[in-house]
Each structure stands twice: as C-alpha cells, then as structure tokens.
C-alpha cells in the first residue's frame, strides 16, 4: 500500500456558540460595567463580616443620627447604628432577595412552562389560563397579599416575590418551547424514538436557556426593587436586621434632618439594580446577534 499524504494543517478551531456569546458580551461596555458592579456587591456581601467597620446591630444612644464623619463614614441612623456597616451587611439581604426570588420563580416556572409547551392539549390550556389569571392581577398586589399571608420577614418576602413572578417564566418558557418544538431536529428525535423527557431535557431545554438567562438577570433587578417596596409597606426584612429597602423605609421619616440615612442605601439599590439591568441587556444582545 502506498502511503497517502495527510495534510497536517487542520482547520482553525471552531468556537462553541456559548464561547462566541461570551466574546460578544465582553465587547459590550455597558454589560461589563454592570458585571463589575454586580461582582463588587457580591464581594461586599460575602466579605461583610470582615470589612464592616462596626456591628450593624450595635446601637449607641450617644451617637444618634450623627452626620458622616471619620468615625462613621456614612453617618449613623436613628438609634445610633453605623450606616456604612448596615449598607455592607444589607447587600446580603438585597442580593439574596433578588437571587432567591428569581431562583424560586425559575424552579417552579420553567418545569411548568416546559410541561405546558411540550405536552400541549388540556394540560397547556389549564396552565395557560391559570398563568393568565396570575398575570392579570397586579404583581405588587399579589406579592403584598402573599407576604401578608406568610407574615413579614425577608424569607417570606422572597417567597412572595418568587411566586408572584413565576407566571412570567412559565409564559416565557412555554413560548420558547412552542417555537422550538416544531424544529426539524426535534421531530427527528421523536421519530428515532426518544422519550418525551429526554427530548425535553436534551433538545428543547438548551435552546430555552439563553432567553431564560436574560430574563432571569432582569428579573433579579426587579426583585430587588420589589423587596424594597415590600419593606416600604413593612412586609420585608424586619428590623433590626439591615436591608436596603427597610433602611429606606425608616430613613424616609428623617430625610430632612438626616439625609445620609437615605442616600447610601438608595444609591446602593440604584447601582445594584442598574448593573443587573445593564448585564441583562448585554446578555440579550450577546446571546441573540440579531439584536446587537
């Protein structure tokens, strides 16, 4: 047998869709700024016990409502606690509120949406009507009623927000599933004899993920605001534990004589939510080039 010369210069390595998406993301400045800020707050929350200058719960009768100074960079609040320490620890509550709520929405919404979209028929009809019903009720009202039912606390606020936001993910997942379901490769997989579950998980779900990631990021932003709103009504994180929303709720009574109590948590909420929004927008543009 004669030896056949095999060309050794192979084609340049192809990037996976995910890697391409990440590249596109990295090029969007807004999204990168958002990412940096989010990471900053996450670090703040994680390192709180080490970087907070004071105990966030330590009250001091002699230091009530003191303006920012070298001892208290952000000033003190209405019972003498250090505002900077409370803002740092508050990052935990706000981030948790955002992330856990959305995690709850995803864990209920995605499977239900998948089932509705994939199974169709009366299952779809039932789920869709119930979803429509939940979406027809004003979101905050649902959250308030649920939080009032469960009792005021951060955990219950997260559950309430999570449940109230679930229908959005049900609808989103369902729509994506419906779009993907009719694709050729899915039909082929069915023809070959794959089980429903396998098809749902291996073929349909990965295509839904992109949209879900975008929506989830944006939903975290909305959830942080929702927690602040519930705290405004007295239904979120309860004092003395710090959360930016409940700090704003208390601070609103002192806006004229102690504005620093409100400025810092307000700015923190603003930057955190803004950065999640920027990140979400960037992800959307990156994952769907047509938008970019």
């Amino acid at each position: 047998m004669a030896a056949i010369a095999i060309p050794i210069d192979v084609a340049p390595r192809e990037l996976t869709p995910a890697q391409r998406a990440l590249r596109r993301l990295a090029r969007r400045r807004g999204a990168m700024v958002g990412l940096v800020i989010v990471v900053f707050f996450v670090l703040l929350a994680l390192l709180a016990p080490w970087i907070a200058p004071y105990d966030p719960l330590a009250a001091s009768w002699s230091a009530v409502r003191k303006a920012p100074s070298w001892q208290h960079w952000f000033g003190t609040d209405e019972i003498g606690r250090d505002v900077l320490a409370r803002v740092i620890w508050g990052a935990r509550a706000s981030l948790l509120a955002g992330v856990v709520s959305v995690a709850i929405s995803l864990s209920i919404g995605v499977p239900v949406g998948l089932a509705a979209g994939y199974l169709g028929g009366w299952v779809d009809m039932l789920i869709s009507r119930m979803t429509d019903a939940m979406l027809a009720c004003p979101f905050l009202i649902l959250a308030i009623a649920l939080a009032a039912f469960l009792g005021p606390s951060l955990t219950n606020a997260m559950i309430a927000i999570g449940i109230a936001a679930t229908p959005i993910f049900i609808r989103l997942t369902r729509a994506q599933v419906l779009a993907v379901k009719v694709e050729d490769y899915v039909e082929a997989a069915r023809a070959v004899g794959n089980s429903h579950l396998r098809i749902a998980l291996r073929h349909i779900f990965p295509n839904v993920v992109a949209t879900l990631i975008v929506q989830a990021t944006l939903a975290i932003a909305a959830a942080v605001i929702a927690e602040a709103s519930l705290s405004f009504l007295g239904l979120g994180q309860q004092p003395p534990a710090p959360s930016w929303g409940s700090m704003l709720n208390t601070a609103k009574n002192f806006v004229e004589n102690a504005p620093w109590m409100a400025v810092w948590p307000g700015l923190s909420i603003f930057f955190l939510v803004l950065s999640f929004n920027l990140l979400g927008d960037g992800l959307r543009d990156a994952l769907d080039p047509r938008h970019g």
Partner: protein
Amino acid sequence: MFNYLLKRLAAIVPTLFFVSILIFGLQQLLPGDPAVALAGEDNDPNVIAYLRGKFHLDEPLPVRYWYWLDGVFHGDLGESVRIHKPVTELILEKLPVTIELAVLAMLIALVIGISAGVASAVLKDTKWDYAANIFALWGLSTPNFWLGILLILLFAVKLGWLPASGYVSPFEDLKANLAAMIMPAFVLGNAIAAVLMRHTRSAMLQVLSSDYVRTARAKGLAERVVILRHALRNAMVPIVTLGALQLGELLGGAVLTEQVFSIPGFGKLIVDAVFNRDYSVVQGVVLFTATAYITLNLLADLAYFVVNPRMRG
C-alpha cells in the same frame, strides 16, 4: 381572524374564573380573623359576632365563594366593611383618577421611551446610545416610593412649585389637577419608559436593517425621512401593543406611587383594604382591574393582528 377572535374570547372566561378563585382564596388565607380586625380597637365581642354573621364568616369557603360570585353576576361586588360603601361605588369613584394617572404616565413614558429608543437605535454604540440607555434604565432602577419622596421634598417643600400630594378633580380645577398629577405620573412613567425604550430600540434596529428601509435609502430619501416616516412607522406596531399592555398594568399597579402621593386611585384602595382585611374591596377591585387588563390585552393583540398582515391566516 374571526376564529382567532372567538378563541381568544373563549379563553377569557376560564381566566377570569381563575382570577376570581385566586384573589378570593388569597384573601381568605390572610391570617387573622377579619371580624376581629374590623372590630376596631374596642374589640367588642358582640360586634365581632355581628360581623361574622353579616359576612358569612362561619360558613365553609366554597359557600362564601358562591355568595360572592352570585353577587358579582348581579352587579353587586359587596360593600366595604370599613366605611359601609358599596364596592362598585368606590370603583366608579376611583376609576377616573386611576385612568388619568395611567394615561399621563403613559404619555410621559411614550415621549421619553420612544425618543430615547429611536436615538439609541439610530446612534447605536455611540455615547448617545449609552446615555439614552442609562437615562431610561434609571427609571427601572429606582424604587418608585423613593423617587416620589425625593421629588416631593424638592419640588413641593424646597421649591414650592408643586403640591406635595393629594388630588383635585380636573373638572374642578384643571391647573391644580395637572400640578398634583405631574410628579406621580413622572414617577410611574419612568419605569415604563425604560421598557418602551428597549422595545423601541430593538424594533427600530430590526426595521432599520430590513429590505424595506434599504430600498428607501437606495431611493435617495433623506435619512431623517427614512427614520421617521418609514422605519418608525413600522416599528410603532409592536411598541403600541406593548404600550397598551403596560397601560393595563398601570390600572391596578400604581400601588406605591399612590401611597406616597396620596392619590385616591385603585392602588391605594387595594393596599389599604388588604391591611384592613376589607375583603370585598380587594376582591371587587382586583377582579375589575384583571378584567380590564385582559380586555386591553385582547384589544392589543387584535390591533397587532389587524395591522400586521403577516400574522393573519
């Protein structure tokens, strides 16, 4: 088209049914005996017993649901236990206020959102794009109640240009009415502006890269004409339908803004009723706003359907 309409109308019935069950169930789940809550600070046992009887509170849940549903079909949404006024009267009282606030907020949102969206799409990736992005996003990133209080402090207390809160009917005094509504409308409109901006931007981008627009450009039309007359017109359709949806949400959702500015609309009515365990009010108002939302949804979809020939058939 007709089939589509029928299908959609048929879907409304079970949806509303679920809404009624959802809101009724949620109310009944709220902890605390409503009779005790409504009996007030004197906690008189006779009053409590009377209230329990009057509102059938000792009957099983499905029976109570039936009483309520029966009333709804007869146009009777019950009565506010707190102030003894029929819920339908309360709704009619508050509806004009809520509608006015919603419409004003929508106008502000459309103006800010669409112009920011167009600018951002046309001037894509320039600093104007980022600026427009940030400006519209600002609306989504600040809690309404917070923005509201800051605005009150600035414009009402420090500058004295606008009233701090409250509501004056436009028929009584249009100027005072607008002065009182401008801040809450702005606060509400901000958040929606962001959503509209995003959609306008993506709709515009799609249209700007379409054949239709390329043809217009090839024909030699001025860029401004291309953008405003051709691109924007086509992009408007999804924007308008989205706008209609947001309007529906506004009808029941301006909860916190109304609290802060003391606007006597639905949002305030519902929240106070939840805290006072004034069941009939919550059930009646939510059912009403849900119906309005669903109807607006349907109308928006129909409009989209009618205007966009590609969706038909």
